């Protein structure tokens, strides 16, 4: 949509739908990834890019041509591409003498670079090397992060968030139990990150929950953490801001006890207790008898009582 000559309005309904799909929304679309090559790439890198594209299949675009840019220095071309194809994740592969077999994972916010983390491939086994039948395309993978570093180190924390964002796929409310096949396991150990991809077989165990057996499919990487370009804290916070409409509406005057009992509160106006409308019970009604009989009754009664005591 050219903004150059003032406002441009779409001429067909289809165009309008397309533009609305790309505009900012309350609940966003699945993040697309663009996978591209740098000025010089080795066989390892190209194969690695292809494999990761296969993992991310419908939500990724793989570019064939080389792009002579350096993301860490100048990210304008990346931003341009993301604007054109509406992709907010990217994976840039390159190969130099100084940084051999380099992969840069990154994400964008509002078409500007948010985070970029450079990982160097030390060991790599491709999809085609491992001759086992793979998971079907588009399976939502289970992500497992192991190692203390993912909790302690800031870089690793961002890396964890980035990898989750990259590989999680579309967000769904329910998952088919039999379809939980694909497992991506990341281990952080001694400054390296080991990525393995398994296929889980749900075996029969005695009880309802199945026993898991794993067999390795898919690419296996040994990454070394190189440079990082992380977003500043305020930009990071801004990116995480959720619209107010998405917040779950809090139900007022309902509270829960530690034991789980549910309490509610009622708010009353001032009441005149004398003029309350209550249930009428016969026994509580006032007795209206004549007065002279009262003394005779009273006289008799104490006598009776005295007699009783005397006996």
């Amino acid at each position, binding site marked *: 949509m050219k903004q150059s000559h*003032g406002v441009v309005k779409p001429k067909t309904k289809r165009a309008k739908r397309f533009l609305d799909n790309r505009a900012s929304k309350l609940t966003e679309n699945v993040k697309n990834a663009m996978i591209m090559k740098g000025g010089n790439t080795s066989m390892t890198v190209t194969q690695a890019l292809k494999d990761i594209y296969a993992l991310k299949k419908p939500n990724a675009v793989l570019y064939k041509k080389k792009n002579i840019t350096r993301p860490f220095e100048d990210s304008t071309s990346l931003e341009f591409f993301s604007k054109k194809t509406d992709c907010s994740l990217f994976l840039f592969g390159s190969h130099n003498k100084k940084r051999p077999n380099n992969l840069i994972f990154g994400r964008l916010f509002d078409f500007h670079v948010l985070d970029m983390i450079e990982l160097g491939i030390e060991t790599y086994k491709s999809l085609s090397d491992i001759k086992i039948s793979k998971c079907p395309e588009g399976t939502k993978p289970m992500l497992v992060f192991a190692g203390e570093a993912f909790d302690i180190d800031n870089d690793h924390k961002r890396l964890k968030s980035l990898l989750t964002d990259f590989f999680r796929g579309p967000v769904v409310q329910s*998952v088919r139990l039999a379809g939980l096949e694909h497992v991506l396991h990341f281990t952080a150990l001694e400054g390296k990150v080991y990525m393995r991809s398994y296929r889980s077989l749900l075996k029969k165990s005695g009880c309802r929950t199945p026993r898991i057996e794993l067999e390795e499919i898919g690419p296996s990487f040994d990454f070394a953490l190189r440079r990082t370009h992380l977003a500043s804290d305020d930009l990071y916070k801004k990116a995480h801001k959720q619209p107010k409409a998405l917040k779950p509406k809090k139900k007022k005057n309902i509270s829960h006890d530690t034991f789980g009992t549910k309490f509610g509160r009622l708010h009353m106006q001032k009441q005149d207790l004398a003029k309350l409308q209550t249930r009428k019970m016969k026994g509580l009604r006032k007795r209206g008898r004549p007065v002279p009989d009262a003394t005779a009754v009273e006289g008799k009664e104490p006598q009776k009582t005295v007699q009783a005591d005397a006996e």
Partner: protein
Amino acid sequence: MAACSVEDVLAKAEQDEAEKLKSISVKKDLDLEFDLGNLVACDKNRIDVRQFRQQKKEEFLRSLARDNTQLLINEIWKHPTERVEEVIVVKLPEPTTPLPREKPPPKPRPPTKWEEFAKLKGIQKKKKTNLVWDEVAKAWKRRWGYQRVNDGTKEWLIEVPELADPNEDQFAKRNKAKKEKVAKNELHRLRNIARSQNIKVPGVGLTPIADQSKTDLARAVSVAKTSTASVGKFQDRLPKEKAPKNTGKKRKFQPVIGNFSHERERQLDMLKVMDSKKPRLDVVKAANKQMRENDREEAAEKFKGRKKGRKGGNFSGKGGKGEMCALPSEIRGSQSIQPRLQASVRRMQSNIYRQQNEHFEVFTTVLSPQVHRGRCQFRQADVGKVVVKRSYKPHWPDELELIRGEVILVLFKDEESRWFGRLQDGQQGYFPASHVDELINQEGEPAVNVARSARRSSAPAAYAGSSGALRLQALRRPTAGGTGVEGEGPILILKSQNSLPDGLTQPVPQPPPEAQNSPSFLRRLLSKHRRKSACHGSTNTGYLAD
């Protein structure tokens, strides 16, 4: 005894239970953290590096992964499941890990100018009904849209108001007013959007852009140019500026009352064309087209034949029908046609010579590309009759023989001194203008013609018994500089051809035209300098020499 067995049974049952759970239980120091909305599990336990190094890397990682995945699965299985279309699905909770958004959250639509005004004045929006009762039609009709009530466009009668001009078109006025209203509405809408997005809407013309491309600049220039009172008609162009490509006009018409002489010329030209007895059908073009098609079909046939394995490869079937033997399909006067020409001529020859079928027919129709060229270069014909003042013997075969006193109808003037015309007996050809004089009255001189025809008629006698060979020989005359005899040669040859009762039928379309001597014809074609317009003669170029 019974008591022991009961205890045993119980113990056994417990053991079984433990066994069952063993398979899915995993021992970990720290519990994992789960985010089931994203199917993520985080294991914060320390990894024993020594063990990692001792054991094979893959084995260690696999066992670790298995344990973690087992725990994650255990966690997932704790959640409620349901059956959806024969499939068991588990309902996942909301994702808990905060992940950054793609784009900033959408801003609410800013109020338009009217909305602000309404809020200021306290004007409420009143909901109107969709349907309105129409008294005339006695039905509920829409307030707006298809078949609405008060449809102004469907009115057949508009009262002219008292103060209005009686010659004004009220319907047009109404249409114009509506268009203006729509445009105004659209402009206001765009302006509202532009105000909210802080961009500019063009009032009139173009909005300024930061970095303009070539097309933008060109457009700006053209817009600026046409923004004068006379819509750019009197604006000078820059020295190297090119004229605008599309003026917006799709068809250009001559003015109704314009140049009288120009109009007269055009009308007279039309008469001349009608009078000229030239066939309206461009025979050359039609023939070329036909030939092209034949060539294509032949090629396709050949290709098919080659594929299937040749079955008696004669292409008489195709060629017999109506193979026009002539020069090849596309002839445009260029040097590059030379080899192609000869090759196709040869092919044509071979075609004809080889075809010995009873269904054989050879058309020798008019096919000379120079006519085509001549037509393209058709010039203003001064249709006029000229009288020959000096006899002239043709130097070239396509020239006319001029006899003093003859009247020639000038068809067109190829050059200043070289004109194309027609004789009384129908012959057409070139002649030098210096030998003729303009004539206004028509003067027929039958005597001359008789003489001419007599001379012509004598000639065939000599050639009466000409055989094919002789004929061919006759054709292979030397080309350069014709003598009187040779000048007549072409005429004679054709006559003899006509008289021969061979199996070769020659449907000659027009009155006996001159024959073309093929070699010279060819030479002429190939020469660049002489633009010869050929006569309308049938050319049996099948008999071309190699």
